[in-house]
């Protein structure tokens, strides 16, 4: 079976800086695939190229086997790719309901249908009690849920989540994980960029690790966490050896 999303040799250069270098990745339909890496590894850059907010210097993006490398964002959304933003971008002056309805309007022309869909999605992500609040009055956790809800309202097949758990406290993270899993169980494939390791370990089927713009490891989360190159990317060169020695001394 061909994967839902496939990127090949994706490269992004900002002047002299090689932000993403020849990255390859596959997202199987129905999976939760994680993309992790230390700060500045190029995760968000890679992510924006998949969502169509930046054009790659080189390489290709395929969705359902079709090349979409140069498609504008709104066309990708139309085809079923939705994204959230790492730095939340609510429509601050609108209510939660109106915010979600903007996403719902993509597939529902009539206002009443869009509002009904917005309510349905709000229930799914646990925003129902806040529907008539203005978006600017939400807490960080609320805003993250709103990001999720708006993206879901476009009825995507592939959901790109950019650090939806960043900035949340442990109990908020515990609340959010079942929501993300529930979305996958409803049939939406998820690619998640995440810093919070606990979440990646418990959510993802496959994890890709990006460091300094290059893909250095891929596989099931447990394998990746033991991978020497991954440990070194996070903790510095020689860290894996030191950890082993430390364990031996103890």
């Amino acid at each position, binding site marked *: 079976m061909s994967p839902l999303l496939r990127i090949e040799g994706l490269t992004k250069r900002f002047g002299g800086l090689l932000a993403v270098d020849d990255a390859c990745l596959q997202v199987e339909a129905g999976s939760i695939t994680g993309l992790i890496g230390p700060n500045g590894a190029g995760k968000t850059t890679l992510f924006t190229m998949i*969502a169509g*907010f930046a054009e790659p210097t080189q390489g290709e993006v395929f969705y359902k086997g079709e090349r979409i490398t140069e498609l*504008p*964002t*709104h066309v990708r*959304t*139309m085809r079923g790719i*939705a*994204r*959230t*933003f790492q730095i939340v*971008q*609510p*429509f*601050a*002056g*609108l209510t939660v309901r*109106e915010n979600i*309805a*903007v*996403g719902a*309007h*993509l597939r*529902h*022309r009539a*206002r009443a249908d*869009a509002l009904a869909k917005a309510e349905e999605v709000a229930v799914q992500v646990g925003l129902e009690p806040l529907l008539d609040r203005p978006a600017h009055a939400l807490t960080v956790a609320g805003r993250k849920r709103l990001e999720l809800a*708006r*993206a879901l*309202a*476009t009825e995507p097949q592939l959901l790109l989540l950019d650090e939806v758990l960043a900035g949340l406290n442990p109990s908020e993270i515990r609340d959010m994980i079942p929501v993300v899993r529930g979305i996958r169980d409803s049939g939406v494939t998820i690619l998640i960029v995440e810093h919070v390791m606990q979440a990646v370990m418990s959510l993802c089927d496959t994890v890709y690790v990006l460091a300094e713009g290059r893909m250095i490891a891929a596989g099931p989360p447990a394998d990746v966490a033991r991978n020497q190159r991954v440990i070194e990317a996070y903790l510095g060169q020689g860290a894996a050896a030191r950890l082993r020695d430390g364990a031996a001394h103890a």
Partner: protein
Amino acid sequence: MKDKTLLLIAIVTLALALLPLGFESNVVLNFLAFAMIITLAAQGWNVLGGFGGQFSFGHAAFFGTGAYGMALLQVRFGVNAWLAMPIAIALGAAVGYAIGFLSFRARLRGSYFALVTLAFAEVFRISANVWSFTGGAAGVLVPLKLDPWNMQFADKRLGYWLALALVALVLLITHRLRESRFGAQLIAIRENEDAARALGADALAVKLKAIALSGGITAAAGSLYTQKFLYLDATLAYGPWISVEALLAPIIGGIGTIFGPLLGAFLLLGLGEVTKTFFANLLGGARPGADLVVFGVLLILCVAFAPRGVLGLLARLRGRGA
């Protein structure tokens, strides 16, 4: 809630329609008719600036195109006024689309967009002032032939009612706008363009549609101006005065609201009249520009204390009281 707004539109329109039945005064009628023209221009601005968040300083470009279109179609081509009006409106929409295409495609936003629209309006003004086709600096005179067939009314109330009908139509259009996908996407773009794009809004297409609609509405105001005064020159049609009034009225009345431009236009013009009379009585002679001083003060007060205009202020006070 939807029905409440529709009902309010009906009540306001009816009240405004009945107003001139109480007065016989020409002064009052002229004031009302002029207020309708400014309202219409401001409603046009409000579609793009209020709902779409794209602040134009150059709505004179659309007003003037509507005004000159109306005048020249009749004078140079002998087109009937009732036919000339929709053409003038279409011309205004086309100018809007063209200016939008050039500036939005270049991703101009905020003050850059404002300055470019201002520049376009000035280019139109200077061109109209030198081109013989538009009558140059002498302007263009529409021959006086009082006949409803020519959209020239002996009974001034008819002219006022015509303008009111257009204002009411635009009230309905803005109401529909708020209930539509196009409106939702336009407001989303005002709030956050990147997020709107991520949710499937084609930002360029939505903004182009908005500026064309905006240009068409403001051009309708221009065409009414022509029929009311039957004389135009470049400064009247394309001058900065109308750009300023078109944006001041919604800002003072309530930006991005359905009734804001209407309320703002009445406040602005009413205050202008009061100021002129006051200074004339006080100083024993007209002081041109005194009303502009008051407008300026009002704008500062509004931006400082009521950023969402009078309607926003009322809503806030009501919220506090409840």
